[in-house]
Every structure is written in structure tokens, then in C-alpha cells.
């Protein structure tokens, strides 16, 4: 059933994400052509086009998270929830579906944004951005994989945090979105205070377990896993034992 849920979730969300990816790549191509066209023009041409393009890419990168949050609320916690929560599936399966698909779209949007900005960079100075060279030159068994793991867990956790907030919000009979916003603020502050504390204390802990003090990677991944498991269990329990589709 999880596979079927994921299939329909991709179908439902691809309607927004594929056109958005197309637009981001198109703007990358336009940027490439524009950079060649404005070569030798006054600096303010370059500044304006760079600012406009930067704003577009920023909007593009925030779009998947916003749409995923909106879709979670719309699909599970409004009238659509009458269908989704009467399917013979568990709340955990519904939650896995939302988190997996949201994470995939967010990671893909980062890749698309990188390709789009690379096109503009090639148009500007004929060279790929530094990040591609760093990726190409790094040891694939260490930095790149670690970076990907960090990004995936980070995206997973941020998506789950907002889903947990919405699950809290649905406990209220009125002003659910306001309650969810309040919950997300509290969760954001608490998780970041703990993260800062972990960063400060991770060096001696890391040294204790690995004998090295030059990396905070392992404690941070452990913390992310802990957050993700916690958010998932809380959200699943709220949607199972406290579902309130008024």
C-alpha cells in the first residue's frame, strides 16, 4: 500500500514541481544567453540581472517546502482527509508517503537550482561554479556522501517538523493554522537551542568516541536522526490517536 500511496502522491505533486523545474531551467538558459548578450555592458546591467535571477532561484528553492506543507494540510487535514483517512492504510504509511515525496522533490529542486545557476555561470565566465569542482575532486567515499546524508536528513527533519506542527494544529477546533504556526515556532526554537548546545559539547564527546576532535559530523547526524524519529513518532501518534477531522 505504501508504494501505491507514493505513486499517487507523486502524480498529485508532479503537477506543480515539473513545471517549476522547467521554469528554473528555462531561466538558467535565458541567464546563459543574457550573460553573453550583456558582456561589455555597464556593471548595473549585470547587477540587476543577477539580483533578479537570484530572487527567482531563492523563490524556487523555498517553493517545494511551502508546497509540501500546504499539500500535507490540504490532503490530510481538510475535507480530502475524509478520503485519505478512510483508506485501508495506517497513519504511519500516510506520513511516510508525505515525507518521502516531499524530500525527493526538495533534493531534486536543489539539483535543478545547481544546474540552472551553473548555466548562468558558464554564460558569465565560461566556467562551472566552484561547487562542481569540489564535488568532482572530493573523495566520493567521504565528503560527498556525508554531505548528501546531511542534506537528506536535514530536509527530512525540516519537513517533518512542519508536519508535526500541523498535526498539533489540528487538535484545535478553531484557528488551526495559527496553532500550527505557534507550534512550529516553538519546535524551531527548541530544536535549534539543542543543536547549538550539541555543537558546543560535541567536540569532547566526539573525541571520547572517535579519538578525533576535528569533526562534529557524527554527533550532528545522530542528533538529526533523533529529531526525525521523535517528530515522526509524535506526528504518527497525533494522527492515529488524536485525529480531529471536524
Amino acid at each position: 500500500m505504501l508504494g501505491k500511496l507514493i505513486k499517487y502522491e507523486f502524480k498529485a505533486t508532479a503537477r506543480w514541481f515539473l513545471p517549476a523545474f522547467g521554469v528554473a531551467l528555462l531561466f538558467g538558459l535565458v541567464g546563459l544567453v543574457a550573460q553573453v548578450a550583456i558582456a561589455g555592458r555597464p556593471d548595473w546591467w549585470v547587477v540587476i540581472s543577477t539580483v533578479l535571477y537570484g530572487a527567482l532561484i531563492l523563490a524556487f528553492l523555498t517553493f517545494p517546502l511551502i508546497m509540501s506543507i500546504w499539500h500535507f494540510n490540504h490532503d490530510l487535514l481538510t475535507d480530502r482527509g475524509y478520503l485519505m483517512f478512510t483508506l485501508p492504510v495506517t497513519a504511519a504509511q500516510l506520513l511516510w508517503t508525505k515525507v518521502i515525496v516531499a524530500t525527493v522533490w526538495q533534493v531534486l529542486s536543489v539539483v535543478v537550482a545547481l544546474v540552472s545557476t551553473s548555466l548562468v555561470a558558464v554564460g558569465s565566465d565560461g566556467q562551472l561554479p566552484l561547487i562542481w569542482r569540489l564535488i568532482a575532486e572530493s573523495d566520493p567515499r567521504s565528503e560527498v556522501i556525508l554531505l548528501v546524508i546531511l542534506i537528506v536528513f536535514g530536509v527530512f527533519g525540516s519537513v517533518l517538523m512542519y508536519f508535526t506542527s500541523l498535526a498539533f494544529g489540528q487538535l484545535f477546533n478553531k484557528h488551526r493554522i495559527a496553532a500550527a504556526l505557534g507550534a512550529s515556532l516553538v519546535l524551531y526554537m527548541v530544536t535549534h537551542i539543542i543543536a547549538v548546545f550539541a555543537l558546543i559539547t560535541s567536540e569532547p564527546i566526539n573525541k571520547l568516541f572517535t579519538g578525533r576532535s576535528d569533526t562534529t559530523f557524527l554527533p550532528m547526524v545522530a542528533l538529526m536522526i533523533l529529531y526525525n524519529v521523535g517528530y515522526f513518532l509524535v506526528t504518527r501518534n497525533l494522527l492515529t490517536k488524536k485525529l480531529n477531522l471536524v
Partner: protein
Amino acid sequence: MSILEVKELTKRYTKSGPAVLGNVSITLEAGKIVGLLGPNGSGKTTLIKIICGLLTCSEGQVLVEGKAPGRETKKIVAYLPDTSYLSDWMRVDQVLEFFTDFYADFDKARALKMLSLLQIDPKSRLKSLSKGTKEKVQLILVMSRDAKLYVLDEPIGGVDPAARDYILKTIITNYSPDATVLIATHLIADIESVLDEVIFVNQGVVVLQDTVDHIREERGQSVDEMFREVFAAC
């Protein structure tokens, strides 16, 4: 075994707030069409949502074929809400695929036949359909399942009299004899002819559960007359 048992169920939306449902106990046997009747705001929809697992109760217990609402009960309960729950961007045939994928008891051929009778094109997008046609599509989806318990919330509430006749006919002709149909409505006169039993709910309390035959024979009243009498006194 009873298909549905509701035991001393109470529902409050806030801990200290009033009970929307107060100590409700009902039992439904298989093979009956039961009317859950009451005025607007009497708690019918809340009770139905608890039966379907969309709301949790404050006290008491709901058992569908002996099990608390969950994945197993959702396999045998077909629920029709009083609002549209389908995605507007989908085509009717895509929704049929969706139901085929998730419900093992969904009969696609039966659904296509009913769509054809109502001249609804399976290729049409839901957003292009009128509100009444969308309601018919939802009813077709629900009644095309071979469920053990059909829970229909106001199935005739928003449609014209001609459509009401079609909907009632669809319900009667498509549920299997060993299944139970629970229909919540306040439009008693339209639905009376198909009911075997009635449950009257007022202000969250069950005020009467009886068979339609008993009401007619012993009390010499139609259900509609009985309803007006009971609720005029409340």
C-alpha cells in the same frame, strides 16, 4: 456478530465543554438499512466520523465487526461524507483506478455501468462537473464497493428530487443483502420507504431506536410523523 456496536460513547470537543454526543449506545445487525435521523446539529455527523475513525471519542467504545476503527475496519466500511472529498484535478476514470488500487472490494465494472446509466463521461475532469454530478460520482464510488457497512452522511442533502430517487435506487440495488447501510439525514419523508430501522438523535442523545414496521404497526404512524412528534417536543 453485530456489524456495529457503539457503547456508552461520549464526545466532547474540549475537555470542559459540553458533550456533542452523550453516552450513546447503539447496535446494528447485518442486512439492514438504518436511518440515523435527527435535526441539523444533533450529532449525526460526529457519530459517523467516530465510526469511520476520523474523530476520536472522549469516552466509550466503537466496534466494527468486533474491532476498533483502524486499518482493518476501513477495509469493510464504505464512507460517503456530506462534502466533496475527491481531488478536482483528477478525471473520473483516474478516481476509479484509485479506488481499484486501494479497495479490494471495489467493483470497477459496476461503477462504469452506473456512470454510463447517468451519462457521466469517465474521461471528464471532476472540476468540470457540477456539484450534483460530483455527489453522484462519490455515491457511485462508495456503492460500487462490496462493503459490509455503508455509512452515508446526508446522501440526498444537496441534490434535486429526481436525483434523490436515483440515489435511493442506487443504494437499494447495490448493497449486498448481508451488508448494513447506515444513512444519516434530516430529510425523513424522502428516505422513509427504504428504511428497516431508525435511530433518532437529538442534541447528542439517542432518543429512539426502533424498527420501521414497529413504528407503523404499534404506533400507527409513519416515521416522518413520528419524527415530527418527537422533535416538536424537544
